[in-house]
């Protein structure tokens, strides 16, 4: 009896159970260790589940005693396991990096509740990736929204409260639309499991054509608001910029990505790819993608605050992902999902190293970052690794996803997108390179007095997770070949 089949469930239950135990524990040190243990164990369990799936293929895990249409089930496949492993790995490194500096960021009163919300947040993302039941995914979206909102206001400064309210109002509208879409879908299919809905839609399609189209549009708009695509991204820059470094690294790194994974599951395994192609949604995605890439980068150029710049660059990268969805062929989808992994790892690295740079330079504005390399050599080095990946230097994941997106668009006969990809990459350089150039080469007066040129900036423990994350970024770039093949094999079954 392979107990390994239930590992995804444990990967989700352990952080939830530990978060329920946290209010009873009083010492902050134990709470930090608990958070570290729970994210490490989730990562290990997801890794083992991935190993099992590689050997034995995908399987469905029924939660409790009842089969699919009655009970809830988990779909544990290659796509889900790779995504869950990425999310838990990023969380583990963010938690390890935050344990040294959380007192500085949010004061020592709310540590207990902060780590509680962090545990609930990433457990709900793992659940959102694995679940095969649409209403269950909706409840996971709600938990991740509430926990993310709590993490944004943890540093209780006025601007983060305004950002959190905007975030909450927008995602409430989003979840209202998703629930309305689910109501339409339930009224014509009668069950809530993704595969069963797909089967029911196949024969209910002719009779209730408009209902299926409208519910698809509601799902796309609802999840689009939560994933912050271009025109609906208004809440995102404030939420990422004014939250403390750890929360913005976590929420931007994996928060919006799980919604994209859910959107792909909803579109391709619930509605079916021919329905998606027929409904003209691909043109909408391509348009949103191109607009997002352009406008996101343009906004990012004019930002003076480094964290807002990174937030707008997230909007641009979301544009890449939607461009990949809009191309419509298997390679485009695989490239988009690879970009989800590459971007989630790189963005977490960028936000954490940018936070350290801001501390070194004593402020978030980019002008202050002149010759910050003297004070924070390691952080700036790691920041430049992330920035080079974003720009698209070969070997790094950013380049691989741009490269495969352009191949996919040529294959799909939409060569015009090539121009958009190249133009957006140039725009990326315009707003990523200045920070590196300012940091290393510009010399502002008074920058060097009172600094002893030691190689170590501060605690070695603090920079270890960042170095490991930079290694992972390079590793993902190196392993990109078989990740994309795995995804293409997986999506060729769905297409």
């Amino acid at each position, binding site marked *: *009896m392979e*107990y390994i*089949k*239930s590992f995804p*469930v444990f990967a989700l*239950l352990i952080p*939830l*159970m530990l978060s*329920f*135990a946290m*209010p*009873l524990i009083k010492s902050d040190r134990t709470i930090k260790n608990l958070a570290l243990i729970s994210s490490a164990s989730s990562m290990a369990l997801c890794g083992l589940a991935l190993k099992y799936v590689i050997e034995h293929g995908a399987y469905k*895990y*029924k*939660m*409790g*005693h*009842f089969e699919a249409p009655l009970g809830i089930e988990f779909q544990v496949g290659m796509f889900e396991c790779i995504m869950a492993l990425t999310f838990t790995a990023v969380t583990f490194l963010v938690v390890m990096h935050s344990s040294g500096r959380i007192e500085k960021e949010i004061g020592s009163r709310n540590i207990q509740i902060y780590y509680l919300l962090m545990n609930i947040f990433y457990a709900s993302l793992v659940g959102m990736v694995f679940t095969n039941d649409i209403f269950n995914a909706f409840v996971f979206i709600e938990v991740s929204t509430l926990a993310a909102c709590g993490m944004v206001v943890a540093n209780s400064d006025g601007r983060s409260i305004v950002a959190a309210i905007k975030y909450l109002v927008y995602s409430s509208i989003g979840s209202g639309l998703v629930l309305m879409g689910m109501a339409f879908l339930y009224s014509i299919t009668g069950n809530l499991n993704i595969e069963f809905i797909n089967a029911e839609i196949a024969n209910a399609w002719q009779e209730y054509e408009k209902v299926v189209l409208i519910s698809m549009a509601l799902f796309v708009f609802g999840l689009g608001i939560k994933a912050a695509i271009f025109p609906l991204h208004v809440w995102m820059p404030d939420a990422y910029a004014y939250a403390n470094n750890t929360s913005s690294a976590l929420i931007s790194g994996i928060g919006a990505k799980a919604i994209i994974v859910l959107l792909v599951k909803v579109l391709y395994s619930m509605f079916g790819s021919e329905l998606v192609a027929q409904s003209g949604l691909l043109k909408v995605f391509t348009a949103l993608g191109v607009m997002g890439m352009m406008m996101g980068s343009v906004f990012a150029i004019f930002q003076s605050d480094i964290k807002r710049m990174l937030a707008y660059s997230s909007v641009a990268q979301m544009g890449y992902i939607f461009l990949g969805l809009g191309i419509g062929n298997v390679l485009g989808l695989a490239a988009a999902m690879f970009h989800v992994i590459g971007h989630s790892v790189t963005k977490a690295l960028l936000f954490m190293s940018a936070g350290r740079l801001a501390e070194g330079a004593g402020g978030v504005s980019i002008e202050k970052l002149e010759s910050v390399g003297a004070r924070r050599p390691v952080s700036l080095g790691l920041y430049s690794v992330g920035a080079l990946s974003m720009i698209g230097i070969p070997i790094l994941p950013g380049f691989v996803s741009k490269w495969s997106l352009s191949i996919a668009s040529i294959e799909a006969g939409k060569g015009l997108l090539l121009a958009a990809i190249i133009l957006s990459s140039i725009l990326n350089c315009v707003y990523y390179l200045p920070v590196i150039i300012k940091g290393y080469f510009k010399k502002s007066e008074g920058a060097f007095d009172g600094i002893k040129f030691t190689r170590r900036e501060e605690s070695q423990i603090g920079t270890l997770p960042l170095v490991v994350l930079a290694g992972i970024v390079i590793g993902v770039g190196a392993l990109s070949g078989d990740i994309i093949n795995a995804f293409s094999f997986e999506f060729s079954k769905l297409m």
Partner: protein
Amino acid sequence: MSSTILSVVSSVVIPFIQLFGVYVIINGHISPGGGFAGGTIIGASLILYRMVSGSDAARNRYPYSRLIKITCFSLLSYGLIKGYSFINGGLDLHMYDLPIGTPGNIFSGRYLLPLNIFVGAIVASVMYFFYSLFSEGEI
């Protein structure tokens, strides 16, 4: 708000409200109601007690430490019971399960009764949390 009429009437009414809330929770799997409805009723009685007898008396009677222990204990045991039955069912281990019993009486239904009680406890203390945090900012 601590006029004698209010305190006398509430000291008579609150036990019956809580009794009714417990009834709704216990009979959740037989008659309409269940953890959520019963929990809200008990939460309302806690709020009524806090309103009438003032926050100091309420803080002694329902201190934050006891409420957070009850909430965490019921969440943990909900997770343990249901985690056990997820693993037990999912892997078809057929390990020991509570008997279903005859559907009519209270101790029927495998884990329905304990789960209803835990959910009721969670909902009651969370409602009380919301009220006391919004009104005085402390529990």
